[in-house]
């Protein structure tokens, strides 16, 4: 089919693109989505979802065995086959991807499989699509939501057999005996947890002085000590310079900050040093869209330097997180509907980075948002810091998860909550109570004075807030 017209065409059906498309359809726009791979993007297919499925099974595997042994049972691991938990992770991904396809259909959104590129203002060309699909689309607005891919290191080119990206790891049905992980961010630490729980010998190599470099230092240290305890080697302040193949395995050349060189032997390497935006080959610059360091430069409402062309998710320089992409998708959709149909404007012009939750799903989990203590101090800001340990919470002790703490950064004058980092069981869920409080401009007092059910892990937050007011009870 030669050409078709829509109010909005979205390029990419990841958590940014499909949410944007659905929100726009809800507001009465005619919408098409072009996707070259599977609906749901990296997040659903080769990211958040399958990795969480693996992490959950790794926890059950480990905790189940520990619980049985603690109860005096003998556990025989013979017959363990990683392909089985791996299959479950693929099933979860497939199921959710189909769910996205269903949601798009339900909202009467045209789903086009193919590779899209901008061919002019309001024009998108699609190649490699099925015969029934249009080759060219014209639209009043275009949202580019093409996401990102794992960043490659020149000295460690991906072959996805021994040198793996996160994609390669998640799609691999077996595990190496010894795994070297380059990069101790969220992806590196989560993969380290899964691999270690299933019996892989894991070494994490990080260039910076500590793991989880973007998180609160004190909290990251709690994660580091838990990993060290379980036998994962953490080599921080260490650069991986290259490798040689030696027989079946690999020998990595490492160099410490002080110049000391060493070797690390492994059967596989995961390179998790970040992600690169997919902004090439889309015709962006040809139609005048300005890029900055490979990311699309956007202003209010995610609009690029070309009117009518918007960019959301990992191709803009806000944190590369699925939930940020989704929110940006909503903002863009609501803005476009406002421009085209006069519907009400979005509640916000842009994502406030201080109100974006960050989550690391290893054990112990880490959930955080807002201003971290070091950052505040580096800026010369006087802040209050309140802490409360899991061990002071009845439920944490009763359920065998007494490690970790909640840390709240607040303004000592107004008692406004500026940020928080929780490390420990359920941290990625717990953090939202404090985030809601901060976003709603509630004070420590409000969290401290709200009755929290006993026994719950949420009492940790109430006690944390009380600690800031000098009246924590259980410590």
């Amino acid at each position, binding site marked *: 089919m030669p050409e078709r017209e829509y109010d909005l065409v979205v390029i990419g059906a990841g958590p940014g693109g499909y949410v944007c498309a659905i929100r726009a359809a809800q507001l009465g726009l005619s919408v098409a989505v072009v996707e070259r791979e599977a609906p749901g993007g990296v997040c659903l297919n080769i990211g958040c979802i399958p990795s969480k499925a693996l992490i959950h099974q790794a926890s059950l595997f480990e905790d189940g065995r520990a619980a049985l042994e603690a109860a005096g049972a003998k556990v025989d691991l013979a017959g363990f086959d990683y392909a089985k938990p791996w299959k479950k992770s693929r099933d979860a991904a497939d199921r959710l991807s189909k769910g996205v396809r269903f949601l798009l259909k339900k909202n009467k959104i045209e789903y086009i499989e193919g590779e899209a590129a901008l061919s002019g203002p309001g024009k998108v060309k699609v190649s490699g699509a099925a015969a029934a699909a249009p080759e060219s689309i014209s639209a009043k607005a275009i949202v580019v939501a093409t996401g990102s891919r794992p960043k490659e290191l020149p000295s460690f080119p991906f072959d996805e057999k021994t040198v793996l990206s996160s994609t390669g790891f998640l799609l691999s049905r077996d595990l190496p005996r010894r795994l070297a992980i380059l990069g101790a961010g969220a992806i590196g630490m989560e993969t380290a947890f899964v691999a270690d729980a299933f019996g892989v010998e894991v070494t994490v190599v990080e260039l910076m002085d500590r793991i989880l470099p973007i998180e609160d230092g004190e909290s990251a240290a709690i994660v580091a000590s838990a990993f060290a305890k379980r036998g994962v080697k953490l080599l921080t302040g260490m650069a991986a310079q290259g490798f040689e193949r030696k027989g079946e395995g690999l020998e990595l050349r490492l160099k410490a900050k002080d110049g000391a060189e060493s070797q690390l032997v492994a059967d596989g390497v995961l390179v998790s040093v970040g992600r690169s935006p997919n902004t090439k080959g889309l015709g962006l610059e040809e139609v005048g869209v300005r890029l900055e360091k490979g990311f699309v430069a956007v202003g209010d409402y995610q609009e690029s330097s070309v009117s009518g062309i918007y960019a959301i998710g990992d191709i803009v320089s806000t944190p590369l997180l699925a939930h940020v992409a989704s929110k940006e998708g909503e903002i863009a959709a609501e803005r476009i509907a406002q421009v085209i149909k006069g519907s009400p404007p979005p509640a916000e012009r842009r994502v*406030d980075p201080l109100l974006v939750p960050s989550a690391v799903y290893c054990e112990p989990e880490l959930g955080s948002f807002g201003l971290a203590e070091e950052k505040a101090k580096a800026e010369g800001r006087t802040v209050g810091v309140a802490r409360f340990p899991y061990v002071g919470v009845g439920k944490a002790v009763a359920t065998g998860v007494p490690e970790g703490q909640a840390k709240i950064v607040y303004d000592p004058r107004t008692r406004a909550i500026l940020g928080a980092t929780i490390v420990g069981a359920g941290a990625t869920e717990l953090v939202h109570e404090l985030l809601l409080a901060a976003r709603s401009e*509630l004070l420590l007092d409000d969290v401290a004075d709200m009755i929290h059910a006993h026994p719950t892990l949420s009492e940790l937050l109430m006690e944390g807030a009380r600690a800031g007011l000098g009246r924590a009870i259980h410590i």
Partner: protein
Amino acid sequence: MAETLLMMALSPTMSQGTITKWKVAEGAAFTAGSVLCEVETDKASMDYEAPKGAVLLKRIVAEGGKAAVGDPIAVIGKAGEDPGPLAAMAETMASPSVPAAVAVAPSAVETAPAMPRAPSFASAASVPVAAAPMAGAPDAAAPNLDGPSAPSSYPPSSPLARAVARELGIDIRKVRGSGPNGRVVERDIRSAAAGGFAAGSAAAGGLATGGLGARGPAVAQGSAASSSGPAPDRRLPVSGKRAVIAKRLSESFYTAPHFYLKRRIDAGPLMALRETANAGRDKPLSLNAFIVKLAAEAIVRHPYVNSTWEGATILERSSIDIGLAVALPDGLITPVARDCARKGVAAIDEELSALIAKAKERGLAPSEYEGAGFTVTNLGSFGVEEFTAIINPPGSAILALGAALKEPFVGGDGTIGVRRAMALTLGCDHRVIDGAAGARFLATLVSLLEEPGKALL
């Protein structure tokens, strides 16, 4: 027998009113002539007096709700009667404008008794202030029968906004919220603080808080710094008063063909006269009172200026009633000094200052601001050098005064001197006043202003 009580036209131009405060609780008896509620309408807040004695069975329009003239606002009758059927019927008949107003009516804010600030805020840190009874309100102790839709005198606000307001000394009642449902959030307080709209400035007098188009705190937002990016655009509700200003001035501007005449005068003699007259007086006479008096004297000499275009006829007024435009935080009002030809400057000054004080405090009655045949407006105190004004109906001319500023001038003998000059701009309705007629009046006015003694002749 129970009956419905309808909204009355409390002034000639009133088409609808907002009930800002009920003075009688449901179930309470009242006598004929007692005040049932306060109604904000046109440019004033007025009392709704009971036409007869009865018991208030049910309020149909809640506080903050609007009712068109003729709409039922309450059910009255004997004690113990069931208001149900009538109330239900009334509610289905009521005009669609009944839902409670989104924002606190400005006049209600202005007339609210001062709140004891620090103690009540300090103790309310974790209690929604919106729930706190308004200190000093006559029926604060009475049970609240208005249901959840009754707006409070306090806008909803976040705990942090209240904490910051306390810290910066901002009166939160005077800040409009930009959060969900108009909630006042931190950035609104910081904007208000940055915009200089602090608690005290309203009390310092309406004239100090903004121009004639004063829109109160809402526009004080502007360039304020905010921690989370620029503040979003906002839609503000239009108060009854602002709606009237918009309607009357648009009507005047689009129906009366305006033209403008300009003169510069030497304001020195007038300033000197005022100085002499004020020597030894406790309360100095305002410059505006002198100008109003001298304008009246000029009108005596050119009575056609004091008239109204009526289509088939032109009404020439016998009494010289002159309005003075006054900026209040919630909008413009023009109190009228009556029969100025027969009054001295002191009497005019007294009349005007009493009206201005009343306007600030609780609003004027229509009889106090309507019917000006001529209007004076002065933006000199804002540093405006000269400007044109829109004619204030039913008048046919308006005099706009700029600031009295020192300027060099060439004297009669050819030497250069310095004088206090003031720019006068006379706006006329050409249907009534032709250019030459306007110019003649202006010439007389200039000569009286420059040589006030001539007014005695």
